[in-house]
């Protein structure tokens, strides 16, 4: 089985790809438009350098060859959402080509990373087809893979890794990811177009794998076709059969010259898998824990880097996990998070109240002391020596243990849970 992806995500720029219209969120349709993104006669595109810079970061993160000069092409097709009836996109002069993304010991090859403009949005209301051009000219990056993904698990891993890399470059694909899938179990390639969202992407893949497998099993021929994903019914449907590749009549866009990308700054990539491996080397912390914690939280990674060394990695991770759990997130001042880490380092069982106190800037009352097992066992034995009847009572009624736990915990200022663990052990050993 072979799966190839074409992933489209919006780049995080303030203005559109070829004009200075705002990219801010707005509820008012057609409020962020100009002659350029409406494709009016005589208007010309001017390239937004921020979009190039952002896409350059992505291409570099995917280990692509970066082209020294980039150029654009016109992809011509007629559809009402496309103001010029051609889309400005890239081919040979794309930002990057021939890269890869690593997933659990395997490389998924990246054919191309390119930038292009998004068409307008079609809104259907009853009999009407309405057009909102606010979206027209949104800078998109398209990441095209080779058909190297062979299982659903690999697809999940690919998406997860891609998501974390893009996240650290300022692009959150959880919000909006649009992808075209190419899936072939046999010779014939089936394309599933315009799948939106990670969940749908996985579901559409699963459905399509099963559909093709079933067809092959029944000795049916798989048609070369383009399918769409029906989110409601969770299935793919045939849109059109295709005898040949679509004809888009690409030519160079003569309104945009060749751009040299030397000197355009871009962000460096953060590879979470590598980072978590490196951090956990020689410690007893599972790299997966770090990976999960930091995958989509820039702050988590920053905090780990800051406090690792000053405290043990285990304490850093544990303290942060507790904070995250009880406060809901890590959006607090560094010194507050550090308090939680310090408690973890001391071996204190961190409670919700403690985190609340930290968050509110109050003094943390450490309720329970901590002792080692041997010390605790000694305390229990001493108590039994002083109260020999307890043992007899315990043999008749196991609940007697609770009495013992309560007394010892109170006297020693230890956590009842900690005491309970040892009391049950010691009592049952007698």
């Amino acid at each position, binding site marked *: 089985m072979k799966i190839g992806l074409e992933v489209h995500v919006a780049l995080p720029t303030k203005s559109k790809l070829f004009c200075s219209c705002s990219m801010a969120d707005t509820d008012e349709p057609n409020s962020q438009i100009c*002659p350029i993104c*409406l*494709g*009016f*006669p*005589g*208007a*010309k*595109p*001017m*390239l937004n350098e921020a979009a190039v810079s952002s896409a350059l970061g992505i291409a570099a993160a995917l280990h692509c060859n970066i082209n020294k000069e980039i150029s654009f092409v*016109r992809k*011509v097709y*007629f*559809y*009402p959402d496309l*103001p*010029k*009836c*051609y889309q400005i996109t890239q081919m040979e002069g794309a930002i990057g080509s021939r890269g890869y993304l690593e997933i659990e010991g395997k490389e998924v090859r990246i054919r191309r990373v390119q930038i292009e403009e998004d068409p307008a949005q079609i809104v259907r209301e009853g009999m009407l087809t309405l057009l909102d051009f606010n979206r027209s000219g949104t800078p998109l990056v398209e990441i095209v893979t080779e058909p190297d993904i062979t299982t659903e698990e690999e697809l999940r891993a690919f998406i997860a890794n891609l998501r974390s890399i893009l996240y650290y470059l300022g692009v959150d694909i959880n919000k909006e990811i649009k992808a075209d899938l190419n899936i072939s179990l046999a010779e014939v390639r089936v394309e599933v177009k315009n799948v939106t969202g990670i969940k749908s992407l996985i579901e559409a893949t699963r459905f399509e794998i099963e559909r093709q497998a079933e067809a092959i099993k029944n000795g049916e021929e798989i048609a070369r076709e383009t399918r769409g994903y029906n989110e409601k019914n969770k299935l793919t449907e045939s849109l059109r059969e295709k005898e040949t*590749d679509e*004809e888009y*009549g*690409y*030519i160079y*866009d*003569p*309104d*945009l*010259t060749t751009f040299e990308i030397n000197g355009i700054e871009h962000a460096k990539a953060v590879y979470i898998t590598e980072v978590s491996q490196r951090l956990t080397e020689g410690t007893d912390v599972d790299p997966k824990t770090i990976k999960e914690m930091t995958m989509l939280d820039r702050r988590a990674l920053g905090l780990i880097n800051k406090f690792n060394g000053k405290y043990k990695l285990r304490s850093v991770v544990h303290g942060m996990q507790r904070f995250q759990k009880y406060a809901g997130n890590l959006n607090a001042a560094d010194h507050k998070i550090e308090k939680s880490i310090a408690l973890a380092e001391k071996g204190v069982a961190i409670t919700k109240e403690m985190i609340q106190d930290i968050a509110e800037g109050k003094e943390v009352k450490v309720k329970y002391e901590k002792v080692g097992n041997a010390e605790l066992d000694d305390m229990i034995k001493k108590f039994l020596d002083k109260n020999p009847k307890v043992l007899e009572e315990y043999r008749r009624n196991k609940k007697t243990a609770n009495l013992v736990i309560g007394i010892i915990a109170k006297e020693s200022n230890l956590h009842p849970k900690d005491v309970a663990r040892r009391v049950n052990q010691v009592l049952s050993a007698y």
Partner: protein
Amino acid sequence: MRSFVNEFLKLEKPKGYYEELVSEISMLNKEYHAFTNINSKMIDCAEGSIPFSSKANICVKGFETTAGSKMLKGYIPPFDATAVERMLGSGSFSFLGETNMDEFGFGTFGLNTETPARNAFGREYVAGGSSSGAAVATALLKYHVALSESTGGSISTPAALNGVVGFTPTYGTISRYGLIDYANSLDKIGVMARSSGDARIAFDIVRGKDRYDTTCSVEKINGNKKTKLFVVKELMEKTEKRVKASFSSLLDKLSSDYEIREISSEILSKSIAPYYIIAMAEASTNLAKYDGYKYGLQYEGYNKRYNDFFTEARSSFGDEAKRRIILGTFIRSESVKAKYYTKALRIRALIIKEMSRILHEGFIISPTIPIPTPKISEAASLTPLENYAIDIFTIPPNIGGFPHITFPYGYMDGMPLGAQVITEQANDYAVLDFVSDWEEEFEYRYKHDVGSL
């Protein structure tokens, strides 16, 4: 240096001058169809303003701009082209109106539009194209400059046929922002005027970088005079004999100041095919946007399927536009692209290389068109291929983006004769100076002098 613009600024204008001007040109326009639209507000313009016109494919805010096409009927641009903005911003010029043209610039004679412009020297003759109206307007008005545009000869040809100066600058010198695209890698805004001095004044106002046009990058313009004039043998061979004879007499006159040399260049005689391939490929993408519901023509068949809607709406293009859309789309198709489009780009590169080499040594001079001015009836009976062959002298500088100028050098049977001089890229002042020198010796003639003082 002769300049009607400078002369105009010095002269006293009588009261009601602009009213008279607008009314007189409006009357004449009924015969010549030079303008598609005359700006009646011109009568309220600032005292001393010089009228300028713009070709109907250059956007003027609030003014119907159709590029000579039914598809853009009623289209009123919400913005000014950069060139128009700069003319208006100069404070010396006022907008008189938009000038007639072949639909989207597709034509050599100005006939590919609903109401073609007529030659200012004889209404039964073609005005030339595609900037037909700009040339006729310049031949009708004494004090006026015309912003026009050339893709493959659309300034030189009509300027020559109407006996005016037609200047096409280096590609990328004047911003194309607001110019309705024909073929973006070839389109150049230029100027027509009654003297090279006037063309230079307008050129200096509108030229220079513009952030709205990425391809507009030429800032520094030179005027390196050349002493050699080259005549390309392969092109002259295709010239009609009477035109050839007249042109020889021009060379005789110029031989006292220039060294005239015949050269041979096979590739320059092969420029028509790559030019039309590139132009049609680009044009067919530019014309995709006219689909009958956004601006201009409103096709009301909203109950139709998209493809039927687009097909029916787009049937309003003229024949030549349809021909170029179909051929251009074919040229771009995957199966033949390498054979035509990619090869044409390579030949263009070779032509540029060859011409740069020649033009470094001297100017190239030729008649502007290889035939005497045809009558409208004669031109209408030409096949498309015969039609395209008329562009043999104008295409080489246009395909390579080289600055060139056409100027009247004589009159044959009462019709003006034009010659064209080409120079190196960014050496635009040199050809303007060449014609300025010529104007010291030669007086241009006109049948009309609307607005004279």
